[in-house]
């Protein structure tokens, strides 16, 4: 069999396993990257089906399709699956494929640990999804799992806790691998300040993961012991405090969303300079901004808690610091725009998604600043305004960045050009349907529609109907993406080593498809 991912390309490497055993035991960063990406897309579809069920129920007022308990379970699993099953693994998949090639390394620092990091994920995902079939169903406490509600939940909650533990371990050891690789295995001459931005953002992100994933593990373990072992961390009757969970969770939760967006920023920083045929504007300030965002993001967690009844000093502190994080984020947006300015722009699919990212991310950023204003947040917290904000920053931004990166590097990975027409259709349909789905949600939140409700008062009907139609359009469009990727894997116009004429970086010195083992001897970087 001679697929683009075949290992027969390499000279003399016929002692490697093939078939299923290859994928189970591979310690190769390219294979593992592929595994992560296929896994993440599968979870994206599973989480997406849950979202479409939610939107189908919300198409009209009244309960038509699911009972409220199942609705809450779907809402919860949709969030957990998308964050931990789709987006984080996708970003790690990119890290695996690209970091060694971009720094001129033969593989990750710990190849066998890399294999283990991946293979922890499918059992965790099965545990999480199958919690739907546990007595009482999956947990319906929201992805934020606040007690005492989460303490009330059935065994599905415990299954979710164990799944989260396993997913967390995978992320932590993956991050250890990434940091060690980046620090130790750069080609001679590649100083830190010569690294591609994607590598920089992953270096910072990996440190954040190691800092906050154990905090999440602590929080859900305390939930577990409150549920079964007689502790009362979150039970006032025992001297505990439900709000303490919120503090601990969000100390993880806020950096988590920056964990999702920083590597996405890195992807955009790779794509825009290539298609502007200009160097990235302000490399130094990009690095500083990335570090500033990472540090500040660890100090803003209680802006998710503006209605719990914090004293004035608390409200003010978290408001001020949350406003502050807009400054380095703005610097990044200005830098990308300045990269485009006076460039020689072309708009192949990766660039379409990168520019689309800029458009929707700025919108998500503006609503973020609005939400940072504590008094305004009091009206918007737990409403569809927040749902709109985080879908603009996570779906539109992270997802579009992932699409940009996929189209950008697919020719390098497979040796074939993808179908540009299909790519454009994917972009425009995604862009239009995304906005049709989520823009009206700002208005729903402003008008007073709470989150996580399966049924709603009549004044919210029109925008909900529009959002549901958009959601189905958006979901179906992603099948087009799957088709385009599979088609590219199976064949297409042969791709040269330097796929894009404006591309710079070590990965473009390798042939397309990149050989199974690359940079066996490190290149020297000028």
């Amino acid at each position, binding site marked *: 069999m001679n697929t683009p991912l075949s290992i027969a390309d390499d000279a003399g490497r016929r002692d490697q396993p093939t078939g299923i055993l290859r994928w189970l035991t591979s310690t190769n960063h390219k294979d593992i990257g592929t595994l992560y990406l296929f896994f993440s897309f599968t979870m994206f579809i599973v989480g997406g089906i849950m979202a479409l069920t939610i939107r189908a129920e919300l198409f009209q007022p009244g309960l038509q399709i699911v009972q409220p308990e199942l609705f809450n379970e779907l809402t919860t699993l949709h969030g957990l699956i998308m964050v931990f099953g789709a987006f984080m693994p996708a970003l790690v998949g990119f890290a695996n494929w690209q970091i060694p090639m971009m720094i001129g390394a033969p593989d990750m620092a710990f190849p066998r640990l890399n294999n283990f990091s991946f293979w922890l994920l499918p059992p965790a995902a099965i545990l999480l999804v199958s919690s739907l079939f546990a007595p009482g169903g999956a947990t319906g406490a929201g992805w934020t799992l606040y007690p005492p509600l989460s303490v009330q939940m059935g065994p599905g909650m415990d299954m979710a806790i164990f799944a989260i533990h396993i997913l967390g371990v995978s992320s932590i050891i993956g991050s250890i691998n990434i940091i060690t690789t980046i620090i130790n295995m750069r080609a001679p001459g590649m100083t830190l300040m010569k690294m591609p931005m994607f590598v920089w953002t992953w270096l910072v992100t990996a440190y954040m993961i190691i800092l906050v994933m154990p905090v999440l593990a602590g929080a859900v373990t305390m939930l577990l012991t409150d549920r079964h072992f007689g502790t009362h961390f979150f039970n006032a009757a025992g001297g505990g405090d439900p709000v303490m969970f919120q503090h601990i969770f969000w100390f993880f939760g806020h950096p988590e969303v920056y964990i999702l967006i920083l590597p996405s920023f890195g992807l955009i920083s790779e794509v825009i300079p290539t298609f502007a045929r200009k160097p990235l504007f302000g490399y130094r300030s990009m690095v500083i901004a990335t570090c500033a965002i990472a540090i500040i993001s660890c100090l803003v967690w209680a802006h998710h808690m503006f209605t719990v009844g914090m004293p004035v000093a608390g409200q003010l502190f978290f408001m001020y610091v949350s406003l502050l994080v807009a400054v380095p984020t703005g610097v990044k947006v200005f830098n990308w725009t300045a990269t485009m300015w006076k460039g020689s*722009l072309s708009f192949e699919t990766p660039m379409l998604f990168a520019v689309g990212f800029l458009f929707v991310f700025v919108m998500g950023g503006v609503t973020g600043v609005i939400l940072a204003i504590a*008094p305004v947040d009091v009206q918007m917290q*737990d409403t569809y305004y927040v749902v709109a904000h985080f879908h603009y920053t996570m779906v539109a931004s992270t997802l579009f960045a992932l699409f940009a990166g996929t189209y950008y590097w697919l020719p390098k990975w497979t040796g074939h050009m993808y179908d540009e027409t299909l790519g454009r259709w994917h972009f425009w349909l995604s862009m239009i349907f995304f906005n049709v789905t989520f823009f009206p949600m700002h208005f729903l939140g402003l008008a007073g529609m709470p989150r996580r409700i399966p049924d709603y008062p009549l004044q919210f009907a029109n925008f909900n109907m529009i959002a549901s139609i958009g959601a189905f359009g958006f979901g179906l469009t992603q099948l087009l993406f799957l088709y385009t990727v599979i088609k590219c894997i199976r064949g297409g116009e042969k791709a040269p080593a330097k796929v894009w004429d404006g591309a710079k970086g070590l990965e473009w010195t390798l042939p397309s498809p990149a050989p199974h083992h690359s940079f066996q001897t490190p290149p020297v970087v000028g």
Partner: protein
Amino acid sequence: MTAKLMMMSNLAKASSWALLTLPGMAIAESSAKFNFQTPQTPVAHQIYDLHLIVLGIGVAIALVVFLFMFYAILRHRRSLCHQASQFSDNKALTIVWTAIPLLIVVGMAFPATRTVVAMKNTSSPDMTVKVIGYQWKWRYDYLGENVSFYSDLSTPRDQIENRAEKGENYLLEVDNPLVVPVGKKVRILVTANDVIHSWWVPAFGVKQDAIPGFVRDSWFEVDTPGIYRGQCAELCGKEHGFMPIVVEALPEEQYKTWLAEQQTKNKVVAAAASAAAEKTYTLDELKTEGEKVYGGSCLACHQANGQGVPGAFPALAHGPITTGPIAGHVDIVMNGSKKNPAMAAWKGQLSDLDLAAVITYERNAFGNTTGDIVQPKDIAAARK
């Protein structure tokens, strides 16, 4: 890029812009649908204005960015043979576009701070109401006035399940609204009985999480008489979307009249309840009353046919508790379940008669044929 592709993408660009302006075209309908509800308290007014300012600044900055972006997209194209400059940094520019946003957010912080302080100032209220969140209703307790009552969704199940046409205030109507005087500072002490809820009235700009075991306060002063509606704003279980808040703001004189009526009514109801508790009822009388109580309090979880939801809410039909010893049945209904906290303690919420009736009903419905009768006197004895 071929001409055909260019045309296609231009068309797509145009239509996506057109779609995005659809909301604008609908503005003729009602601008309230695109902004906060009309503010009815001083705090709500401040929030409304604050939001408009910050939104304006954000949109302005976004438009500036998009201006540069779209100019570059249109003019700095390879297809127009535009040559790429190779500049990659500009220290002065970087400092400017770091400093200006910093100044802007610092500027935003000033009016925002004033509003935060105002929202937290619950001192010198004219009256205080304790608000307690339950799964899945609210309870209001007028401190010092001896008036307290539950406030439960009054939208019929038929409407929710699409067997009847939905009323105008679908999911926003209750049996007993919170009644307050206009123009008086009302302090609310908010807590919860079971899980975290959140008391939210958008027109007031008040949202306060109700946390079990803790009391948090907030305040509002209503400008204009009227009926104001809100919803629970913290996921609290399956009926989270079905526990609305309705506040009726009356001119002060009318409020005083209402309050006096409530106090009289309470005395009457209390007297009737204790009289009722002395009576002895027949099985049929108890079953009839009990079915009503069941519909209002138990049906949501245990279902109309008593079959419950397997794994979540136990079946009462042929159940071990409903057909087992009466004392056990009385205990779990009155005191809740230690094993399963979702089963609340009803002794505080239901009268002796109601408890007796619903327990009797459960023991003689859904195919159960115990023939047992529980009298209000038995409940009163169990309370001791």
